[in-house]
């Protein structure tokens, strides 16, 4: 192991981590290609996600408010990125089911880096589908989005999606030990996002729901995206808050998916089958 305290050692560690991440990204891309063809992605998956946005937007119609329709549509279109990131919970549990987890764990590589890089296609998929939705849905509904603001909105959405990805990796660490909880964790988190983060309903202002909303990815970033989309000037406050939340979940993910997993392997408490 190179000595991390020396500049050369630190460079070597970083270089190894980057190479490992690159390999993970390549295999992540291959996994995604095995899952979808261009035709099934565009005709199935993308159509489903656009319908998801439109479905929730019809709630605005039921509420009798064009403004609510637009706001719900924007929230749900932007949320496609962070919601897609939750897919890493299933794919990580899939490593266990397909018998590849053993091989990933017996290598000398850091399991956190390996597993985190193997699911990055979910973030990229989410960014792509969210971008398409944010471009297409305003053509159909009165979405409050100035097109010139779209690049800034997407940049913030990338940070939000990465934060959600870190939360999802934390859940993946739990789901690897308790695979029967996988669906409860992902579907429950999806509803938590929709309920607390200002996607479909307003962000709660007091009590435990407000405190939960503050530490969930999406809440601060979506508020900033809404402001930017409406033409307001850029504000660092929500951006820094979103980055802090992402960092918090990144640390949590490292603990559950890295340290705890290594300890489980060492002590033989991880049931692989």
């Amino acid at each position, binding site marked *: 192991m190179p000595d991390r305290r020396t500049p050369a050692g630190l460079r070597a560690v970083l270089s190894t981590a980057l190479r490992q991440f690159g390999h993970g990204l390549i295999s992540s891309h291959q996994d995604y290609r095995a899952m979808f063809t261009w035709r099934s992605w565009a005709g199935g998956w993308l159509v489903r996600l656009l319908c*998801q946005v439109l479905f929730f937007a019809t709630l605005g119609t*039921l509420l009798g408010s064009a403004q609510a329709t637009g706001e719900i549509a924007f929230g749900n279109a932007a949320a496609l990125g962070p919601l897609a990131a939750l897919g890493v919970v299933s794919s990580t549990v899939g490593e266990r089911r397909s018998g590849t987890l053993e091989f990933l764990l017996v290598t000398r590589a850091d399991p956190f880096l390996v597993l985190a890089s193997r699911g990055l296609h979910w973030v990229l998929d989410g960014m792509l589908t969210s971008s398409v939705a944010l471009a297409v849905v305003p053509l159909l509904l009165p979405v409050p989005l100035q097109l010139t603001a779209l690049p800034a909105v997407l940049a913030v959405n990338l940070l939000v999606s990465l934060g959600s990805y870190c939360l999802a990796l934390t859940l993946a660490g739990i789901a690897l030990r308790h695979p029967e909880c996988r669906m409860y964790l992902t579907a429950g988190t999806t509803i938590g996002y929709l309920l607390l983060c200002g996607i479909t309903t307003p962000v709660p202002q007091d009590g435990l729901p407000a405190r939960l909303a503050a530490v969930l990815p999406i809440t601060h970033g979506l508020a900033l995206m809404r402001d930017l989309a409406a033409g307001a000037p850029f504000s660092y406050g929500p951006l820094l808050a979103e980055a802090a939340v992402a960092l918090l979940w990144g640390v949590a993910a490292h603990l559950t998916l890295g340290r705890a997993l290594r300890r489980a392997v060492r002590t033989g408490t991880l049931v692989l089958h």
Partner: protein
Amino acid sequence: MIAAARMQAVLIARSPDLLATLAVIPLYSLVFFTALVHHHRESAATTVALTAFLMSLWSHAVFVAAETVDTDRREGTLEPSLLTPGRYLAALAVRVGTTTALGLPVLAEVLLIGRLGFGLPVRIAEPGLCLLVAALTALGVAATALLISGVMILVRGARALQNALTYPFYLLAGLIVPIGVLPAPVRAVARCFFLAHGAQLLRDAAAGTADGAGPRVALLAALVAVHLLLGLLVLRRVLASVRTGEVALHA
């Protein structure tokens, strides 16, 4: 057949992950109810409660009931099942129907969430008609699960598209707003879709505005029967292909 139904109920009860859709999807009602309360549209509470119920029923059929045959294939019990003298197709249909029927109590669950959790005026004016329509709709949803089961055996990669079978159909069925607001070509397709009829009849039965519901119930029953027949025929054809070795059971 009773044995098949009992076995499926026991299998699901012993697999907590299979109950996840039933446990979590009804909670979408929390999102809908919160939006209504925020916009002071409490009068639409029953409508969104029924939306959450139908979403749960459909999701449970697509993600759990439709996987019954695929689970048999994965666990290696499909081959011996096909070799037994008993009719596997009938047993499978009963198992899929049993799994789907477990979604029916969600109707009471979402109504209770609205009433007790939010104090909303959720009410069912014609409970008898509502139960009949819910049962017919559940049968149609089970038929959809049979159709998907056949496709999952036949087409590799169908699992990836399983996720795509939710929201487009919720929109097509007008689960939140009636299909009248859909564009004309989509509306024409929706008129042939049993779930759209079931959703509208449920809303009308709940509101007490389903006067002369007889012909509409008959139309719903006919659409469900056609759907069920189609599901059984497709699955029978697929299982016949499996028996003759035209379809690979293992990747």
